[in-house]
């Protein structure tokens, strides 16, 4: 199955570019293989809804990972995403529940806060020439800290409109359904892929990842692009937070703990280089699906103790990465 995808792609793609797509194609093939293996092993696994559930359960992660893709493509990293997700849920919940604000006001405000935070971090990173790791780590502390300042308890969201959106299911043929979040996430991923491939901003992102020095000397707007990238990541995290609050209908300061690592892992599993300049958004989508599918397999397995769960996740991850690496290395 996987080799079929690869060979057909080989026929179509022009000369050398083929090798650049191989990691993504390998990932897609392996993902499909993983799904088939799951279907063979567990009853009820091989259904369309299981796949859709992976999307429903990971819509927020997908959005966050999309933002992270931009950052990583420039060779940076954003550790603040998980905390910004939590902050967004907290701000949304407290404003709507305690403040009685309407969602139509709250959501734009939350998106604005996230973007502003990203913008600020981007500016510090660029103008003061400080490593992204440390700046975004400070951003992570800040956002998480603000959550606790708002409150240490979790807050339910009871706004009827918000609840209605959260519970709405868009029916698909075959008795399947997806949530609104999935549509948003897919739209964001599509838009991001377009931006990365078809706009100057996107190409500048790749150029900076290839070599920031060269990009500067080629007369590209390095400052603007770098700052934009962190702003996008901030925006995506805030949007991820909104989706998260739709998912759980609550806000909580300990939400999304460690999500930055999940997002980074998704991006990197998708074949993007952490050093920047190489990778595709499609890879990120696949990376998120891989992580989601691993989770699903674990819950279908159903008999693993807490520690075996972790060991099993590690093993699955290892098997996946190893195969991906071997396939890519052979074909390249």
């Amino acid at each position, binding site marked *: 199955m996987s080799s079929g995808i690869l060979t057909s792609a080989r026929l179509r793609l022009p000369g050398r570019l083929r090798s650049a797509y191989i990691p993504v194609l390998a990932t897609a093939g392996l993902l499909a293989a993983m799904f088939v293996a799951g279907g063979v092993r567990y009853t*009820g696994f091989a*259904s369309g*809804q*299981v796949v859709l*559930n992976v999307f*429903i*359960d990971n819509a*927020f992660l997908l959005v966050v990972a999309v933002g992270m893709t931009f950052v990583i493509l420039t060779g940076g990293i954003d550790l603040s995403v998980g905390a910004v997700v939590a902050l967004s849920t907290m701000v949304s*919940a407290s404003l709507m529940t305690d403040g009685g604000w309407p969602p139509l006001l709250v959501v734009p405000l939350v998106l604005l806060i996230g973007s502003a935070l990203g913008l600020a971090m981007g500016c510090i990173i660029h103008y003061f020439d400080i490593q992204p790791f440390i700046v975004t780590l400070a951003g992570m502390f800040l956002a998480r800290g603000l*959550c*606790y300042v708002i409150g*240490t*308890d*979790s*807050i*339910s*969201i*009871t706004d009827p409109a918000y*609840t209605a959106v*959260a*519970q709405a299911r868009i029916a698909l043929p075959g008795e399947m359904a997806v949530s609104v979040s999935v549509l948003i996430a897919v739209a964001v991923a599509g838009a991001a892929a377009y931006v990365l491939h078809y706009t100057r901003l996107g190409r500048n992102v790749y150029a900076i990842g290839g070599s920031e020095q060269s990009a500067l000397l080629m007369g590209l707007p390095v400052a603007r692009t770098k700052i934009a990238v962190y702003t996008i990541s901030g925006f995506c995290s805030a949007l991820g937070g909104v989706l*998260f609050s739709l*998912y*759980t*209908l*609550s*806000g*909580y*300061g*300990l*939400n*999304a*703990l*460690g999500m930055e690592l999940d997002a980074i892992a998704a991006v990197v599993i998708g074949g993007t280089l952490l050093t920047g300049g190489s990778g595709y958004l499609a890879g990120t989508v696949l990376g998120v699906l891989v992580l989601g599918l691993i*989770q*699903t397999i*674990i*819950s*279908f397995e*159903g*008999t*693993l*103790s*807490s*520690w075996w*769960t*972790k060991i099993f996740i590690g093993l699955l991850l290892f098997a996946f990465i190893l195969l991906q690496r071997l396939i890519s290395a052979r074909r390249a």
Partner: protein
Amino acid sequence: GCGSGGDTTASAGGADDGKITMGFAQVGAESGWRTANTKSIQESAKAAGIELKFSDAQQKQENQIKAIRSYIQQKVDVIAFSPVVESGWDNVLKEAQTAKIPVILTDRAVDSADTSLYKTFLGSDFVEEGRKAGKWLVEEYKDSTDTVNIVELQGTTGSAPANDRKAGFAEVIGAESKFKVIASQTGDFTRAKGKEVMEAFLKSNPDIDVLYAHNDDMGLGAIEAIEGAGKVPGKDIKIITVDAVKDGMQALADGKINFIVECSPILGPQLMDLAKKVVAGEQVPARVLTEETTFTPEQAKAALPTRPY
């Protein structure tokens, strides 16, 4: 120890209406307490003849939601879970309701307005635990008029037990002005942090009378710190903790801890009983409290030999 009692009920339940499948979504394995909780549930499920699907959410609500959703997918007979947080369960619980799968909450409650979303809640009341700790303190110092300097080792910031145990304790001691919490800091529920924070407390606060730790482990760490500073735990500084795990009980019996509020992880047998009733469509109380007590050193000495965890 508790397995033998469950055996008889198991054969009864199994004979009634085939095998029950339960999906249990555990918070994680963040502490020894939690592990004991998991173990109790797994063992009593086996004993009760209930097929258990278990998943570990690694302290993440989203993972728990995913697990519950997959249980719905797998059409289990009953779902039980210990919520990571109180809020945010309405969606997935509604899905369970639509799929006609009854839900039992364990260990902590959810704050859902719609109580029809779950059948019952089995667990401890963290606020009450805090109150119990406070009451003992008030009782202990009822004859004294001097200020009582208290330091508090909190659990993980933002976590429900930490919030509630702090609130319950504050509620009780707040009534009297002689009780003063002079320092309160998180020790993340771990021994290492408990020790580290306590050492810092001891340096910056020369006269500490009482230590209130949100779990035994932090208390045990703090004891090492107190001993390191040349003071005698249990005498120079009185120590109250929550949980009553074995190591804590030992320290209590040794007089290093003065009072422990029990928070029992052994929910398994009660949970299995409830599950059977719920599946059979019987009426169950909306709230079932675990049987919990408090321990003084004497009680600890008596209870220690039979302590299962």
